[in-house]
């Protein structure tokens, strides 16, 4: 009964979304205020019904209702409760329902926070969001209904949730990621509303900025979590594979980052108006494209959902309508007049533009690399693969260029910054980072020789120290060396600072873990020892253990440093009873400056096992950096100016020019 209730709730939500899409838009053209207000209540109502539907599906999982096909395929009685709940979004249908839930959640947030907006604008924004909801609700009901029953004879026991997904990572990663993906529908809707209304003043930019920040924070954290999850769960110590599905989440992030920066210039200075509009459309379009790539089976990926061409066609049509429609609107109504305001030299406008060039080029490169195998196949040029070597070759230099520019971020001013003044400010940081970057790698290895002096480490440290010292110099100058004046700096300034340093920390992790990664695959008998990266590993043995829904071999490895026992690691090889899948569960001892990573391979007979030992210096900085970047976005979003109605006049000039101001 609950299941039918969920199904009906979803249908009602679809009806409400239809009203939300049509009535306010019609009202906005004919000037019926009552019609325009309809969208607000519809958004809330839609949220209530999608939430009800979601709750019903969750209940079906908790009650092991295997008459529901989706539950039967993705859960079983032995599954621990927390995984029964997270299994709701463990596969295609449920994750789509989660997407719909989050979309209606964002719409409701817009409806509730739109008090200060002109009614005509909020009506149009909600109408656009409603139209997107219609698409997803139809997609759910027509091609991917999670409430389909297996009748008349339901199975007694379910299949199982993919063991890879039976993990804390799955509980948090997809919701975070979707919050980000879907959150970009709000600036998208603002951009469409601006295009429909033909008003491109800085107002739409100001209103959509906090939404962009929040969505971006979620996406940042979602991607970091995903990378961390892949690192400890896939079992081989990789943290980014340039897999199509990862790229699908990374492209909106890059476009969203570019949007965050360019909209600052649009809001403050009225420049780059059509570019910012285009980025707002592009960011959400890339989220939709990601959905298409992941769910259509068009590309091979380790994480792809079970594919179905029918779904592929549906999303493609949806994508064509939403993206094609908005780009057509952009082409017909986008602003062609250049803004009156001017800027020159190394002004902040110029730097933001260069930042956008790097970010959007990276995004375009990833898009081309991801889709190229498909293009080659379609044009009958053969099957090719584009993998990590390709992406790294381009991405690393592009990001390096970005980081060099990023050092100047705080110092630039709107309209005009004197190039010479900027260079002067760079003198001390460049000396400090140059010296440190060449000296520090000498201390990272015991016996220095040409063969182990890592150039990768030098370049990494150079860029990281450059960004950090420049940021700190800027902070020093702004606070005039006084702690008390730190409080006077705005939230957006702190946000910028923290996010930029976060990027540096992330780059530190990427560069140093690549440069000093130590790894060895060994055949070990109980009692065997090995030494790697200054640590002694001793293999004690393997025992059999029984988990809730798996049987595992659990290895026991003692790690010593300088004769002292640091940690016992117990990597597992799990055999899930229901599906027979074998999973490598690595064990990790993580500290800020290094991870010890041990994974159990195959048994080699006579008690011998294949074991992979890895020492990964600073790898944790990658995700710490990701969290800092997210924190920066949060600080910027919480800036008082978004909450206060009256703004400090001329704040952008007096506080020394802040990117997020």
């Amino acid at each position, binding site marked *: 009964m609950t299941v039918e209730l969920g199904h009906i709730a979803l249908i009602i939500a679809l009806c409400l979304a239809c009203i939300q899409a049509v009535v306010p838009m019609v009202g906005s053209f004919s000037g019926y205020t009552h019609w325009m207000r309809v969208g607000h209540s519809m958004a809330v109502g839609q949220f209530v019904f999608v939430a009800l539907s979601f709750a019903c599906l969750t209940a079906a999982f908790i009650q092991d209702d295997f008459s529901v096909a989706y539950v039967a395929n993705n859960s079983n009685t032995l599954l621990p409760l927390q995984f029964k709940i997270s299994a709701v979004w463990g596969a295609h249908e449920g994750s789509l329902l989660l997407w719909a839930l989050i979309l209606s959640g964002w719409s409701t947030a817009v409806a509730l926070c739109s008090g200060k907006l002109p009614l005509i604008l909020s009506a149009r924004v909600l109408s656009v969001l409603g139209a997107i909801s219609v698409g997803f609700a139809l997609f759910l009901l027509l091609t991917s209904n999670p409430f389909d029953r297996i009748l008349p004879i339901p199975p007694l026991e379910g299949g199982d949730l993919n063991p890879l997904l039976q993990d804390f990572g799955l509980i948090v990663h997809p919701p975070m990621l979707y919050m980000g993906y879907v959150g970009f529908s709000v600036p998208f809707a603002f951009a469409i509303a601006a295009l429909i209304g033909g008003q491109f*003043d*800085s*107002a739409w930019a100001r209103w959509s900025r906090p939404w962009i920040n929040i969505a971006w924070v979620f996406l940042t954290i979602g991607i970091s979590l995903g990378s961390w999850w892949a690192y400890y769960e*896939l079992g*081989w110590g990789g943290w980014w594979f340039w897999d*199509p599905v990862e790229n699908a989440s990374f492209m909106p992030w890059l476009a969203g980052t570019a949007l965050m920066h360019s909209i600052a210039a649009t809001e403050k200075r*009225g420049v780059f108006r059509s570019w910012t509009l285009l980025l707002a459309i592009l960011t959400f379009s890339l989220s939709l494209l990601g959905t298409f790539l992941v769910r259509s089976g068009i590309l*091979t*990926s*380790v994480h792809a959902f079970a594919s179905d061409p029918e779904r592929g066609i549906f999303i493609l049509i949806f994508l064509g309508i939403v993206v094609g429609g908005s780009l057509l609107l952009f082409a017909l109504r986008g602003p062609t007049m250049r803004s*009156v*305001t*001017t*800027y*020159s030299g190394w002004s902040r406008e*110029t730097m933001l*533009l*260069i930042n*956008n*060039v790097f970010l*959007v*080029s990276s995004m*375009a490169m990833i898009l*081309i690399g991801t889709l*190229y195998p498909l293009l*080659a196949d379609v044009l009958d*040029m*053969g*099957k*090719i*693969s*584009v*993998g990590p*070597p*390709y992406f790294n070759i381009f991405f690393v230099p592009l990001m390096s260029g970005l980081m060099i520019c990023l050092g100047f971020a705080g110092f630039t001013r709107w309209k005009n910054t004197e190039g010479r003044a900027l260079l002067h400010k760079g003198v001390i940081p460049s000396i400090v980072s140059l010296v440190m970057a060449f000296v520090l790698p000498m*201390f990272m*290895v*015991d016996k220095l020789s040409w*063969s182990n002096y890592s150039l990768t480490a030098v370049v990494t440290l150079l860029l990281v120290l450059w960004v950090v010292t420049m940021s700190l110099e800027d902070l020093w100058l702004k606070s005039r060396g006084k702690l008390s004046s730190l409080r006077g700096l705005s939230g957006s300034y702190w946000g910028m600072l923290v996010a930029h340093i976060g990027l540096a920390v992330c780059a530190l992790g990427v560069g140093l873990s690549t440069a*000093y990664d*130590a790894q060895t*695959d*060994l055949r070990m*008998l109980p*009692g*065997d*020892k*090995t*030494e*790697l*990266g*200054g640590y002694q590993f001793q293999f004690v043995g393997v025992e059999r253990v029984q988990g809730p829904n798996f049987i595992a071999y659990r290895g026991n490895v003692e790690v010593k440093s300088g004769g002292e026992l640091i940690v016992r690691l117990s990597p597992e090889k799990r055999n899930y009873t229901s599906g027979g899948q074998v999973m490598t569960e690595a064990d990790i001892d993580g*500290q800020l*400056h*290094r991870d010890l990573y041990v994974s159990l*391979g195959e048994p080699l007979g006579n008690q011998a096992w*294949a074991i992979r030992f890895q020492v990964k*210096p600073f790898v944790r900085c990658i995700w710490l950096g990701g969290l800092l970047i997210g924190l920066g976005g949060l600080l910027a979003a919480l800036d008082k100016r978004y909450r206060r109605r*009256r*703004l400090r006049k001329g704040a952008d000039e007096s506080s020394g020019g802040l990117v997020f101001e």
Partner: protein
Amino acid sequence: MRLRWSMGLAVALFTSVLFGSENLVEFSDESLRSRYQTLITELRCPKCQNQNLADSNAPISKDLREEIQRMLEQKMSDREIKYHLTSRYSEFILYRPDVNKTTYLLWGSPFAILLIGLLAALRLNRRNKIDVGSLDKTVIDQESRIAELLKSGEDDK
């Protein structure tokens, strides 16, 4: 040497000392090992869903790893090894596609996009500069003052 502890990597990073344990893959010459590692990370498992030979547990990956090891021992160059494999499994298994007429667009477009982007940014910048120079100073001042006024008025709304 006080920094030593902080790096936590005191002893030689690139070799591992073995006591009783054996390397899973043995080479007559240890210098082959790094080439082996690079090859198996840059070659794709033909059967799997987007995994390289190093990370894949599929039997075919195991066979191909052994094949690569054998070819390395026969003193074949990386190029010859890749050719040997692509003539059987096609270009599909190369994660770093060769530069040829199929892939000119792939390898060329990132450069082109960056170049176009930078040129466009430069052009926009210069155009704005010329505007400043070519217009009468007072006109600009008036215009920007109007813009400021409009803006502050709107801020106060």
